[in-house]
Each structure stands twice: as structure tokens, then as C-alpha cells.
């Protein structure tokens, strides 16, 4: 039986891991390669890196981080943030990442999904979605709208329709981030996650709002997510990977228990 994946997420700016709330007030919390190794050894099932380096010219710093991570850990990891072209995808994959995630670039140019899938395989392409609850309307029938620029810009696109379109274009996985829940530590957006995950055939990673192991249990069962992204709850030592996994195991969620 397939295990539910627990995935630490590292925001990286100019080669250092940072953490902010709702994309603001970022503080330095360590070296991404060292943190990746720590999580690998602690039983992380995968790792997600978001490059939040503002300047596109400094992308080489991230490629260097990716290369070092690939020499250090032997589980899959993905890289997102600032991926705009096939060339950006190729750089990250050749440096050793398993997957690339595209978010606002795909909103602006959906063809990047199909081009990436054709060039590197569907399994390489993760569609990142930032979503806000706006209430149902004619334009947004699901009540959830796609936003970009860290939640500042509303795109007038329905989140469910976009998820289905992303799948049709060849995305191999969806990373679904609720801007409303992000940084709150009050739990994942269960309604949204359940809606998207039960409507698509590809795996869905839930993101935003994790603060307690119970939140992971809820999103992996009730929310029907295939994987759960975590950040501050482990970055600051509030919980460890083994704490979370043994809780989930105890709660009957199938997780990878040996590594």
C-alpha cells in the first residue's frame, strides 16, 4: 500500500533557507543543504525547495544548492520558484532535482506545462497553485480563485478548473497551497484540498497551515491529500519528523516507518 508522504518545504533566498509568514518578514534559518540532510536522515519522504531569490540573475546560486543537495540526499526533491522557461527547468533537473514546480509562470503561459511534460516527462512537472477562498460566483464556481504574486494578484481563474486543465496539459502532480491557511498554523484548508484531490487523477500535495500533527492526519484522511507539506512546525523544532510520523502511524495513517 502506498504511503502518504510528509514533505518538509524549504524557502531559499540567495542560498540560505528563510521563513516568513504570508510571504513577508523572511528570516534566515539555516543552510539548505544541511537542513535537507537533517530531514533526509530524520525520515522525510521528499523535500521541496522554493527559490524566493528576487533577482533572476542570481539563479546560479540556487542551481549550486540543488547540485549539492543531489550529492547529499538520496530521496526525491523538487524545486520551484522563478521557473519560467524550459531552460530553467532543464537547469534544475540536470543539477539533480527530481521534479520542477511551476506556479505563476504556468498561469501566465499554460503551455509551459505541456512543453515541460513533453521534454522531461509528466512525472517531472508539478503544478503549484496558490489559492484563495472568494465565495462562489459565475466566474469562480468552486469558490476558490487562483492568485499569484504571493496572494496579491487575483487572476479571475477558478482553482478547480485550473487543476483539471493543468492535469490535462500534462502535470504529474499538484502542490496546492491555501494562501488563507498559509502561516496560520491552524491547519490545512480541508474543503479545498478534498475538492481538488478527489477531482483530479494525479497526486495532490497539501500546503499551508500545518502547525500540529493532527492537521496532517486530517488533511491526509478527510482532505484526501496524497502528501502534506510542512515548514515552520519542524524548522523551529516544535516537532520532529519522527514525532509526526509516529503520531500518524498511531492514528492509522499509512506512512513510511523505516528509513
Amino acid at each position, binding site marked *: 500500500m502506498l504511503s502518504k508522504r510528509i514533505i518538509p518545504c524549504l524557502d531559499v533566498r540567495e542560498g540560505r533557507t528563510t521563513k516568513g509568514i504570508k510571504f513577508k518578514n523572511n528570516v534566515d534559518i539555516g543552510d539548505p543543504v544541511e537542513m535537507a540532510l537533517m530531514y533526509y536522515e530524520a525520515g522525510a519522504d521528499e523535500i521541496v525547495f522554493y527559490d524566493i531569490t528576487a533577482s533572476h540573475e542570481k539563479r546560479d546560486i540556487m542551481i549550486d544548492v540543488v547540485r549539492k543537495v543531489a550529492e547529499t540526499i538520496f530521496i526525491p526533491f523538487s524545486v520551484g520558484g522563478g521557473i519560467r522557461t524550459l531552460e530553467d527547468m532543464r537547469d534544475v533537473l540536470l543539477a*539533480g532535482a527530481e521534479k520542477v514546480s511551476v506556479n505563476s509562470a504556468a498561469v501566465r503561459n499554460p503551455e509551459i506545462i505541456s512543453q515541460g511534460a513533453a521534454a522531461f516527462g509528466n512525472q517531472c512537472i508539478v503544478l503549484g497553485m496558490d489559492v484563495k477562498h472568494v465565495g462562489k460566483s459565475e466566474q469562480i464556481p468552486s469558490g476558490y480563485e487562483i492568485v499569484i504574486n504571493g496572494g496579491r494578484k487575483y487572476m479571475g481563474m477558478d482553482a478547480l478548473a485550473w487543476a483539471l486543465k493543468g492535469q490535462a496539459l500534462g502535470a504529474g502532480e499538484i502542490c496546492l497551497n491555501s494562501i488563507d491557511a498559509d502561516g496560520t498554523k491552524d491547519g490545512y484548508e480541508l474543503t479545498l484540498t478534498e475538492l481538488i484531490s478527489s477531482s483530479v487523477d494525479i497526486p495532490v500535495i497539501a500546503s499551508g497551515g500545518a502547525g500540529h500533527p493532527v492537521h496532517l492526519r486530517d488533511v491526509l484522511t478527510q482532505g484526501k491529500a496524497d502528501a502534506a507539506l510542512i515548514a515552520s512546525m519542524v524548522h523551529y523544532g516544535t516537532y520532529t519528523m519522527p514525532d509526526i510520523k509516529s503520531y500518524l502511524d498511531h492514528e492509522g495513517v499509512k506512512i513510511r516507518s523505516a528509513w
Partner: protein
Amino acid sequence: MIAVIDYDAGNLTSVSRALSHINVENVITNDIKLIESAERIIFPGVGAAGSAMKSLTRLGLDKAIRQAVESGKPVLGICLGTQIILQKSQENQAKCLGIIDGTVQAFSEIFQSRGIKGLKIPHMGWNRIDLKADHPVFAGLKENDEFYFVHGYYPLPDNLSQVIATTDYGIEFPSIIGMNNLVATQFHPEKSGNPGLTILKNFSSWEPC
């Protein structure tokens, strides 16, 4: 020296990096002479069966792989590399190498025909294996060890004695197949943490009888 066969099919560097990490000398290559002289062969791959077969044929690597298997040297297939060892794939109805008799099946078709619902495709993530018999390449693994899979198709040899392990995803499918000097995993040992590195280490010293 292990030759990791390069045929433009996905992330070969991760196999090479994992081998280097456990101090196993290796080279990523499509040079037929180098493949002939290598002690062992790893045949990895990510992507679609049809385009992979085209690349292999264009580079003359289809013959090189057949020869390696016939020569008796240890050969390890990984993921798409495993599927291509069979005769034919349901993916684009691609004709494959035919080293092992059998076909590559789609999860989507078997799920539909058996009325299995609610399972995502690809089968992506960590899952266990159930070893059918002891095998030196898979020695030293724990029962609850898990391995990283990402695939929408799975190998199905005609001769079930060539199934070394199975995995449960809606159905019980072959996750390791092999015969004589050939072993092939549907999962990615190079991305499966310590249990995966154990397999690569075992393979690098395996002497098939």
C-alpha cells in the same frame, strides 16, 4: 566499473551520484566499446517507452544491452529501463527489447477492468516490496523498508518465476523482475534512501552464478 547507459532518458545523474556516494566507480555513457568493457551495466530511464526505444535503436544501444545480458555480466534495469526489457508496452504500443518474455501493462486499464477506483496514477511515492525468494542483490533489506516509485505502467513477465518481488497498489504487481545475471526494479533504488543504497551496493559486488 559500472556503465550507466545514457540514452537521453531522464535523470541519469542521480544514479551516478548514488553510486559515487557509496564509492562505486561509474561512468555515464553511450559508448558501445565502454559498455562492452564495463564489468556491470545499469540501464535506468524515465519517460515514455516509445521514445526511449527510438533513442536506444538510434544509438545502437539495443544491441549493446542484449549483448551485455547474454555475456553474463550483471545488469540492473531501473524503472523505464525495467519495462523496456520486456517484449511490448501498452504505452504507445511500443515494441521493446524482448529480453524477458512479457508485456508492460497500464494501471489505468487494469483498474478500469477490475473496477478499482480512487487510486491516483502515476503510482507515485513510497511503497513496500514482498520478496518472493532470497536474492543476493536484495539481501539485507528489512520487511518494512520502502522504495520510491513513480510510474503509470508496470512489468508483467509471462513466466511468473521471473518475478522476484511484488508490490501492492490496488493490485499486486511485479516490482522486481529478473533472471540469471539480470535484475530490474520498477522503483528507483537511487532515490530510496538507505534501503535503495543497499541494493546498489549489493549489485556492485554481485557475482551471478
